[in-house]
């Protein structure tokens, strides 16, 4: 679709929605695809914004398994059950939950086709598909290789697999994590994972070693992580940057080996965090661009490629906002107000968003990055003067408080979405 056609169709959609007859005749229909921190939250916020809206949530899984804190599960500090949530409270809000996946989307006809062939008509569609692994991006790393070298970047069985491998490893073994290039889900995640695995090794298998092979030279909260590693895990955790040869160019699952331009790393346990893209339905819907992610309007989260479809959460290109559960939830609530306004003929107001990411470097050592965002120059941009990371020189008491607040944050956000 060219730009002119796109603008025309946007105008047509808007004209239709603002026509009072349409609003009078039937309840506005909004379909949300994906029941994670973005989708489930958006569905509930839509009902709260206007109970006249008929909201359908399309999600194949009966149980949601949260990624934040799943690194603590890998390190044996937490059980997977603490990460799992069901949709009872979501459906109690009057949301129709469809327990299947979406297989096709017709943006012109405004309908979603489900895996069983059923078609759902919508006035506005919200896509919150999260991420998919790019199985074609790293030679040797396909779905069968992930059974040997878990990614554990979608929480669940993969999380437990990596944990079991660490538990089965003998003291003195080598663990290697391959960290991906930008952009990817949870920018501080690989480094929190490295920290908590290092904590596990220090406590349980102190002769072991952990190497992080990175496809980047800089990463989120880098100085905070590196200062903490020097303090807590000296000689145990080694980070190899891109410019020092850290980029993994292929893997050999048969021998548990990672290959870089500079050598081969055969390890007892290998965690490959591979390159990612928006969940595959984004591509099917025509809202993902060549980067694999979805360009959006920063004020409305409407796709820049397909009118009437909004994209939120990890799948979206959200400017300065990272791909985090907090950001997804922020975006979901803004998007819900926008969509509720559009389907009832109101004009949405300009949004302001927040992100906060807690990371644990040890069970009693938390660090954060925060940001406040607003639409500016077609992007979601940082509000100048706000946000940033925890102070470099904070005392251990502050780190302990941030670790406590991390847990409080998890309880609140999962309560907001599923409770």
């Amino acid at each position, binding site marked *: 679709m060219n730009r002119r056609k796109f603008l025309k169709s946007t105008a047509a959609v808007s004209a239709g929605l603002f026509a009072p007859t349409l609003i009078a005749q039937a309840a506005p229909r909004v379909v949300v695809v994906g029941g994670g921190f973005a989708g489930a939250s958006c569905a509930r916020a839509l009902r709260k914004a206007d109970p006249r809206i008929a909201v359908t949530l399309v999600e194949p899984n009966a149980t949601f398994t949260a990624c934040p804190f799943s690194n603590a599960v890998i390190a044996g500090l937490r059980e997977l059950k603490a990460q799992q949530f069901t949709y009872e409270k979501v459906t109690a809000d009057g949301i129709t939950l469809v327990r299947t996946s979406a297989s096709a989307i017709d943006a012109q006809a405004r309908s979603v086709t489900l895996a069983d062939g059923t078609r759902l008509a919508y006035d506005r569609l919200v896509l919150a598909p999260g991420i998919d692994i790019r199985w074609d991006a790293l030679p040797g790393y396909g779905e069968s290789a992930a059974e040997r070298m878990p990614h554990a970047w979608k929480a669940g069985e993969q999380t437990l697999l990596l944990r079991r491998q660490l538990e089965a490893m003998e003291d003195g073994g080598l663990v290697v994590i391959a960290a991906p290039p930008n952009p990817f889900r949870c920018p501080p995640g690989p480094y929190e994972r490295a920290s908590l695995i290092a904590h596990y090794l220090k406590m349980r298998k102190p002769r072991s070693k952990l190497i992080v092979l990175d496809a980047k030279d800089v990463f989120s909260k880098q100085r905070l992580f590196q200062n903490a590693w020097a303090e807590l895990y000296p000689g145990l955790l080694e980070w190899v940057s891109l410019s020092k040869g850290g980029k993994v160019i292929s893997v050999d699952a048969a021998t548990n080996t990672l290959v870089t331009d500079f050598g081969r790393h055969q390890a007892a346990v290998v965690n490959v965090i591979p390159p990612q893209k928006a969940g595959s339905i984004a591509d099917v819907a025509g809202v993902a661009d060549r980067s694999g992610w979805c360009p959006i309007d920063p004020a409305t989260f409407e796709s820049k490629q397909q009118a009437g479809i909004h994209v939120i959460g990890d799948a979206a290109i959200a400017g300065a906002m990272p791909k985090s559960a907090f950001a997804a939830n922020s975006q979901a609530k803004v998007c819900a107000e926008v969509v509720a306004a559009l389907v009832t003929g109101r004009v949405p107001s300009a949004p302001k968003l927040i992100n906060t990411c807690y990371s644990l470097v040890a069970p009693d050592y938390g660090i*954060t990055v*925060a940001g*406040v965002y607003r639409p500016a120059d077609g992007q979601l941009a940082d*509000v100048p*003067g*706000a946000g940033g990371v925890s102070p470099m020189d904070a005392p251990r008491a502050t780190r302990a408080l941030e670790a406590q607040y991390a847990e409080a944050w998890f309880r609140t956000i999962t309560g907001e979405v599923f409770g």
Partner: protein
Amino acid sequence: MRVWIAAVVVLAWIAPASGAPPAGAAACSGCHAASAAIVSPGPRLVGRDAADIVNAMQEFRTGKRPATIMDRIAKGFTDDEIQAIAAWYAMQR
């Protein structure tokens, strides 16, 4: 106090029947639940006096009140935004 009552009245008038959260308020609910029904050790803002919330935010912004993270977040909001958010939280149950 009169200022806060006025703020609440104005907000109630411009917001739709649903009591749409003002800009930024929905994002606050990532850490501060928007409903008293949600049980969490996170600091509760629902039903708190709006003036207390405004005062806390202003002190976080200037650094007068010690903080781990709220100092960094409060700096991203204007006086008007803080007042609208505080009035909205005060009305939630």
